[in-house]
């Protein structure tokens, strides 16, 4: 019973945070609402006994990526005139109707999905350390070692690309590399 309450409460907070995120005018408030939504999603992860990934969601997403967003918003010192403009040609209602249809389509797909015999979340056969740091790390360093190493290359490329793109153009004129 308690887990049902926790599920619906977290789901409500996750959805509410997401809706408030896209409804805000102020980007800083948007980021904070996204953090609320992610915290609720981390609760759901932990409920699904994904302890390691749930902790990672808080540490990496809320702690690093969204703080990066906050840094950029403060660096740009955004005011209203920077992101508010004239009305678009496509009406707002059209967009909401399209998005609602998209969600209905997703629900229909989930309904028709042939979920195999184990429809409910299993609990009995699950190992006690399912989703802990050690078993996930073991998979990561054995079965998925190559993708894991490729990830480090991807991050390196992203860091170099970000530095190159965010650099001021002046340094090139002054004879920089």
């Amino acid at each position, binding site marked *: 019973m308690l887990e049902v309450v926790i599920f619906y409460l977290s789901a409500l907070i996750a959805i509410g945070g997401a809706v408030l995120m896209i409804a805000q005018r102020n980007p800083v408030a948007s980021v904070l609402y996204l953090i609320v939504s992610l915290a609720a999603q981390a609760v759901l992860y932990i409920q699904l006994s*994904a302890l390691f990934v749930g902790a990672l969601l808080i540490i990496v997403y809320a702690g690093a990526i969204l703080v990066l967003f906050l840094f950029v918003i403060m660096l740009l010192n955004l005011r209203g005139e920077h992101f508010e403009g004239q009305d678009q040609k496509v009406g707002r209602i059209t967009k909401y109707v399209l998005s609602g249809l998209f969600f209905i389509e997703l629900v229909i797909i989930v309904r028709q*999905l042939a979920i195999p015999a184990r429809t409910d979340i299993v609990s009995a056969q699950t190992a006690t350390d399912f989703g802990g740091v050690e078993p996930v790390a073991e998979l990561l360093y054995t079965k998925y070692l190559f993708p894991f190493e490729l990830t480090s290359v991807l991050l390196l490329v992203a860091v170099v690309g970000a530095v190159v793109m965010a650099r001021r153009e002046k340094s090139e004129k002054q004879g920089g590399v």
Partner: protein
Amino acid sequence: MIPIAHYLILGGLLFAIGAVGVIVSRNLIVMFMSIELMLNAANLAIIAFSRSLNLMDGHVFVFLIMAVAAAEAAVGLAIIIAIFRNRETINADKFNLLRR
């Protein structure tokens, strides 16, 4: 126990909200955060399936998706900074150079 379909529908709802954010918003940063939300919705579905099938491989996928999201955020925000330096705006409607 909560059926897995509930988690999938929650993931679908979060994905739809993210899609609404990308379509409706004109602020580049909010659009970008909506994309992050869509990635997270997919992650939630993967975690639910992983628990249902009693396989931990899904956790590794989510880990890799988070790394990709971090890389994407770094590059995307750098692009936003570069665009802001050139055009003094982050309103997506103002970037219509190719349309004229």
